[in-house]
């Protein structure tokens, strides 16, 4: 492996926002309070459009929009005479951050008493024995204080053991595993620790929104390869073309949110081959690895020559329905782990101790737990998909995760947002318009994402409402 990046003398990273003047921000002007005239209050890598104030009460936490109150922070007009309601616009690279869609639809779901099949987290809880383990830890002196930054030793060991069981790879929990505050933080720590400004990182659209956000934070350049229905297969030629001499990493989420796709062995081999050819890192988000209905989950790290350049990310939350505990991890060879740990130690310093102890118990779950999990999710998936098909959606059956994408075109709406608004208001079912997950929103505007991480009754009720109220437009004869 040749040394491509000469890091002999770390320099202060160059951010493109450097010469940002007020004019470049577009219509909006900076919010200023009296006396902070002309100073940029918000750092250049995070600028955002002000939305009307969204109250934070009772909003399901995931993807909550930042409630922007009035733009004026001061007690009167801004010092440079600008009307106080103007605000900075989001810079181009952050423009695709659309956390608002999750909050918007959650709020609408509450307002219209809709069945919420939009939120991507369970409405049921994890197993009792794991909760008991957490309770036990809380009641044990010492287990409420700082854990070792990169994880309590038994958890690092348990993660290594599980990884070994699944991939055959032997990793050292002490030097190759980092425990983080959820997979979200694992992603942030990986990007901050390993990606430089100006580096190119390849993403597969549709993609989970935090990838783009953290890549924007480290000022990387995103190159997108779009997955399309019906199979969401990797377009290999497009993928090849995405690699350049500036490519630092490629990020793969498998099983994939929102399409439910599982990257196949041949797809992973193609990716692996390109990574090796271009000396590129692979970052894999495998949080849904246990929610597999069809095929087999394969960790890219287990392919030949890939372990030394792969960071495998996972978490407790999805597998054990405890998304609020924020326990995740990154598995990577020692030289990469170092960078991740550095970033992590200054991001959250340490991870919730009692929940780390509980995760040790979780990872010791018998195989039957996972079998039952798949069985239960399969049932929910089948109920939902059957219902969606009967109503008239074109459904793209997921191979994994608890999401399903469907084509809503038969219902005659302009785009996914309009469709989802109608769905929540008139039909009483909340779903997510996935165009927000695409680099080019038009690629996703004919689709809708449903989640089936809900108890069966909820899903049945959702299907019932769809059948009762969702109609295809009557075709008039020409």
């Amino acid at each position, binding site marked *: 492996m040749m040394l491509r990046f*000469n*890091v002999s003398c*770390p320099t202060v990273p*160059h951010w493109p*926002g*450097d010469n940002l003047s007020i004019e470049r921000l577009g219509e909006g002007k900076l919010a*200023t309070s009296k*006396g*902070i005239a002309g100073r940029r209050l*918000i*750092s250049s*890598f*995070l600028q955002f459009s002000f939305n009307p*104030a969204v109250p934070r*009460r*009772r909003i399901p*936490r995931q*993807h*909550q929009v*930042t*409630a922007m*109150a009035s733009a*004026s*922070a001061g007690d009167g007009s801004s010092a440079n005479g600008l009307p106080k309601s103007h605000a900075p616009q989001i810079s181009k690279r952050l423009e695709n951050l659309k*956390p608002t869609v999750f909050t918007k639809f959650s709020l609408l779901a509450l307002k219209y008493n809709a069945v919420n099949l939009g939120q991507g987290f369970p*409405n049921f809880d*994890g197993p009792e024995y794991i*909760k008991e383990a957490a*309770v036990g830890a*809380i009641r044990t002196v010492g287990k*409420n*204080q*700082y*854990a*070792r*930054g990169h994880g309590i030793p038994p958890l690092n060991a348990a993660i290594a053991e599980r990884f070994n069981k699944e991939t055959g790879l032997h990793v050292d929990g002490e030097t190759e595993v980092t425990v983080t*505050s*959820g997979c*979200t*933080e694992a992603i*942030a720590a990986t990007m*901050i620790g390993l990606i*430089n400004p100006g580096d190119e990182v390849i993403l597969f659209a549709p993609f989970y929104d*935090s990838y783009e956000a953290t890549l924007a934070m480290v000022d990387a350049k995103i190159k997108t390869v779009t997955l399309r229905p019906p199979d969401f297969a990797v377009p290999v030629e497009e993928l090849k073309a995405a690699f350049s001499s500036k490519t630092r990493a490629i990020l793969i989420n498998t099983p994939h949110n929102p399409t439910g796709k599982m990257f196949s062995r041949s797809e992973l081999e193609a990716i692996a081959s390109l990574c090796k050819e271009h000396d590129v*890192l692979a970052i894999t988000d495998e949080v849904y690895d246990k929610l597999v209905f069809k095929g087999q989950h394969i960790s890219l790290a287990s392919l030949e020559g890939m372990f030394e350049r792969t960071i495998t990310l996972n978490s407790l939350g999805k597998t054990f329905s405890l*998304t*609020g*505990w*924020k326990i995740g991890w990154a598995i990577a060879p020692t030289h*990469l782990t170092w*960078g991740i740990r*550095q*970033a992590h*130690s*200054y*991001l*959250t*310093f340490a991870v*919730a101790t*009692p929940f780390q102890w509980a995760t040790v118990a979780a990872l010791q779950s018998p195989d039957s737990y996972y079998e039952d999990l798949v069985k239960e999710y399969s049932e929910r998936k089948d109920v939902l998909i059957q219902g969606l098909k009967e109503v008239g959606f074109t459904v793209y059956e997921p191979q994994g995760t608890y999401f399903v994408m469907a084509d809503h075109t038969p219902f005659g709406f302009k785009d996914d947002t309009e469709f989802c608004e109608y769905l929540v208001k008139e039909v009483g079912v909340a779903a997510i318009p996935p165009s927000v997950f695409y680099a080019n929103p038009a690629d996703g505007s004919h689709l809708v994402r449903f989640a089936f991480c809900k108890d069966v009754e909820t899903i049945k009720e959702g299907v019932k409402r769809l059948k009762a109220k969702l109609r295809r437009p009557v075709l008039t004869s020409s």
Partner: protein
Amino acid sequence: MAHFLADRALQLSSSNIIHLSRLAEKYKAINLAEGFPDFPAPIAIKNAAVEAINADFNQYRHVQRLCDEVAAMFERTKGVKINPETQVSICCGQTEALVAAVLAVINERDEVVLLDPSYETYEAAVRLAGAKAKHVSMDPPNWTLDFKKLESAIGSRTKAVIINSPHNPTGKVFSEDELAGIAKLCCKFDCLAVTDEVYEHLVYTEAGHKTLATFPGMKDRTIVTSSISKTFSVTGWRIGWAIAPEAISPAITSIHEKLVDSAPAPFQEAAVTALTVGSKYYLNLRAEYIERRNLICEALEEAGLTVESKPEGSFFVFARLPETYPLKDVDYVADLIKSAGVVIVPGNGFFHADSLCNENYRDRYVRVAFCKNIATLRSAREAIREHWRLHSSS
């Protein structure tokens, strides 16, 4: 394989404090290094956490009530009214709150002023933002702030000043005059202030602790960060917050969401209980810590060290090595681990190369934590006393 590491990761150095804790474990030494208590967290709070887990508050969650309680406590203790819906960001500990705050307001090539001796994570956060940290040294023996020095360090690129009070490692609590002086400079130079007030309830003087946000001109330019960790002895729960002006708070929340999405849900619930405990708890906490402070200061003096300024707050004492000790703080610390079985922190890590301080005291200080139960502190006292007795007689 350095070529795969981001430049910014290479700039950060591994935490000395964490490293020493591991050494202490290895030698099974009494750990007076890292700042976590070895006495239990209050039962009521643990019960609240357990109840939250059993009541199924285990998914991603925004607990508005926690923001409400943070705001209520802030008003109660600092006299500043804030809007809990628009000015509070709940984060994974104060560590993350500060990083999120820094990343929300600091641009690359901005400068941020820090006061030495200073806790390592501030500089790290500044570097993560691609900015430059400028250190201004406070002067022993009482760690007084020379305003001429401070003013000369602030320039056109200075975006913020970070103030930690009560202070780690010295235990200093910034006086009203000092805070007023800092406030004046912030206003004069139009910069922000980010404060770390995690030890806000561990204050031993009658004057008490004030927040910079209460000073003239500071309300709209101060970000206050704190947590439940030290106050309630739950450093492992990771619940902290940033209180900021309305124009900044959403940016902090936004960054936080992208870094970690949310703080652990059951502990957010438990934190609500924590923040509503009666005042008796705080009085008791203070009394307990005063007892420990006095014990440890005595112990250190008996061992030939000098406690130039008894800590007014926090649970650290910054003691000066015996004048007769010929070697450096790191040597003293290593010595103490091996022969006395007690681990403390060498002070030099808190002083930075660019701060204008007298070279000759950088390696003459050690930081000792007293957030341990009395029995532990007594054992440590015995061990240190013995070590000194043998050492000074040789």
